[in-house]
């Protein structure tokens, strides 16, 4: 991955920014010394105390045993991120099992994995840190991103997807700096409010959120699947149809798998409404019939009749009359305990976890995930269900 040479200066970031902007990594919470060290040497902590921990800690009081590192990092890149975001109670845990109590319906992005974790977070169940595998469907040109913005030989890093210095307007600080000018179209916007703003890509249904509580009870609702919704805002980015910048973002790596009717990699046309060769991820209204009946193989009433629904891109949150599936309908962005990070959610599940949820009495097959697949597909499709 081409990395932009970032000139770091050892100046604490004390810029006053709104509390809603980028949350912890932007705004006035994250300070430079949380992640960077000028000389890779700390005889004492910032408050004069000793010893200096070698694992991540609050207020910058730590220094990894591995270093010095590029970009004056306190630890190698992924290790640095995980020093806070794995196994710590003061920050959301994103790798494997959640150290903190689970949000009501689980972490909205699920969990990453790495080769060391093993069951139930094997590497084939989501994004694998440090993986050098080329992203499946890699075709960033389809969404106008540079063909070389991501170099898989360098290994997958947290900052392959997230902006480590935060973004005031990007949901979860999504959008790597390496995307350059393409980042604008690929950074989902968001709103935190009990009232949706349909012009934003993501709606976090909370009255407010203040970062830096260091307490899961405070940050769990912010990351809870239950509270996250996605609006539909159609556009064409590059040559790909999209209904939400989340999809465009995913397409910067998995471009061949994203798009809508009329996109060559997805198929279907006005002449052949059901001519899809890949599952559409945008601008295909569930159950739509007629001249724009690309959704003819799905059933809106089936989706709306579900008591537990997968996420869709929709601005009509009552009748879902404009609902279209997207990548986030089927996959957890980080991953989970299912193949491909799929969400095996039955439409009548009584409980929802990061893995989805089964209906009462359902038992998964001993030789596969057949019930889970049916549950997921059955959210919108009645065939075989």
């Amino acid at each position, binding site marked *: 991955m081409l990395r932009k040479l970032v000139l770091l200066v050892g100046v604490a970031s004390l810029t006053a920014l709104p509390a809603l902007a980028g949350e912890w990594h932007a705004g006035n919470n994250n300070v430079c010394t949380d992640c960077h060290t000028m000389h890779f040497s700390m005889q004492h902590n910032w408050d004069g105390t000793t010893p200096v921990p070698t694992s991540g800690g609050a207020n910058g009081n730590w220094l990894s045993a591995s270093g010095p590192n590029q970009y004056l990092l306190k630890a190698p890149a992924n290790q640095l991120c995980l020093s806070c975001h794995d196994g710590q109670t003061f920050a959301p845990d994103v790798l494997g099992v959640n150290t903190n109590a689970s949000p009501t319906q689980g972490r909205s992005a699920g969990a990453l994995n790495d080769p060391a974790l093993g069951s139930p977070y094997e590497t084939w169940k989501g994004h694998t840190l440090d993986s050098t595998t080329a992203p499946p469907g890699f075709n960033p040109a389809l969404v106008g991103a540079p063909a070389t913005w991501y170099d898989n030989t360098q290994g997958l890093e947290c900052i392959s997807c997230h902006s480590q210095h935060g973004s005031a307007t990007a949901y979860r600080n999504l959008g790597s700096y390496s995307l350059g000018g393409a980042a604008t179209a690929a950074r989902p916007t968001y709103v935190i409010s009990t009232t949706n703003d349909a012009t934003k890509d993501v709606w976090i249904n909370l009255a407010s959120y203040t970062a830096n509580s260091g307490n899961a009870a405070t940050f769990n609702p912010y990351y809870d699947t239950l509270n996250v919704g996605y609006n539909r805002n159609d556009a064409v980015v590059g040559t790909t149809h999209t209904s939400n910048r989340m999809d465009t973002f995913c397409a910067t790596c998995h471009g061949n798998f994203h798009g809508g009717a009329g996109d060559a990699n997805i198929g279907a046309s006005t002449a052949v409404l059901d001519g899809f060769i*890949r599952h559409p991820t945008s601008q295909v209204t569930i159950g739509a019939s007629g001249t724009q009946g690309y959704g003819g*193989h799905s059933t809106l009433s089936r989706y709306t009749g579900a008591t537990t629904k997968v996420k869709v891109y929709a601005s009509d949150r009552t009748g879902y009359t404009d609902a279209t599936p997207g990548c986030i309908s089927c996959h957890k962005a980080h991953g989970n305990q299912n193949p491909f990070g799929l969400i095996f959610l039955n439409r009548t599940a009584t409980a929802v976890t990061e893995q989805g949820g089964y209906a009462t009495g359902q038992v998964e097959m001993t030789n*596969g995930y057949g019930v889970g697949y049916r549950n997921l597909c059955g959210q919108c499709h009645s065939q075989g269900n």
Partner: protein
Amino acid sequence: MRPSRQARGVRFVLGLSLVASAAGAGEYHTGTTNNCSDCHTMHNSENGQPMRYDNDKNGAPKLLRAADSLQLCLQCHDGQSTAPDVVDEDANQTPDRAAGFFPRNWWQPPPSGTNPTAHLMGTQVDAPWGGQTTLTCVSCHDPHGTASYRNLKLDPRGIGAPQPVVSHQIVPRGGNIAQFYDSANVRYKRGMTSWCVNCHVGTNQPDHHSVDITIDNSPSGLASYPTWVGVTLPRVPVQTPNDDVIPSPDDQVFCLSCHKAHGSANPFGLIYPDGATLDSACSQCHVE
């Protein structure tokens, strides 16, 4: 009067025989056994490798894992011992496949001057109801399963057709394909003729061999129940609406008494109980 032989060229269409498990409803292709991912792939990519069974990296219509439904169905239903084999030699060595079989060259019309032995698949043919059509497995069978016998479509042409009622003498348990699909295990009750006539219009008319009529009660005494009782060769299938006993007075001749639904080694998919002659079938009911 001798019963008329099949004179008109009846076009057999290949219907996909989708495996069923439960004795009542659709078996494997319904319920919780068939995975969506057995037949469909969302992105045709698994760690960058194609998921199509033919390893084609391009996406296929309807997100199938093969070029089309025919090729997909035959991935399981030809030459595999884990599913009923419907083409040519039977990988499961079923004594007598209830629906018969398609020839190896299932897509090829019969040579000039000969008659088809099975429903012709994947090729445009004259439709029995008029016009032309191209038959595939899913012309007759619902790939997503139905509550009907062998996942037969409830109304293939959308004109109304009753659901065939069929019972089995054994239940499937995954490892008994040869037994479950053996004709000896099947008891046809009612409705199959009407289902066939859904496409083969006119075959239940007076100028065709009687169907859905009790052997013991054939018009003008053309058929003989004692003759039927005295059969020593393998019996042709009959409908037995009131019981599972064959022979018994309620036994009825129907479409499948003479024809295998998929096809056979004989013209028009006819059944030759002695392996050689049509007369060996006719003489099971008729004394002429």
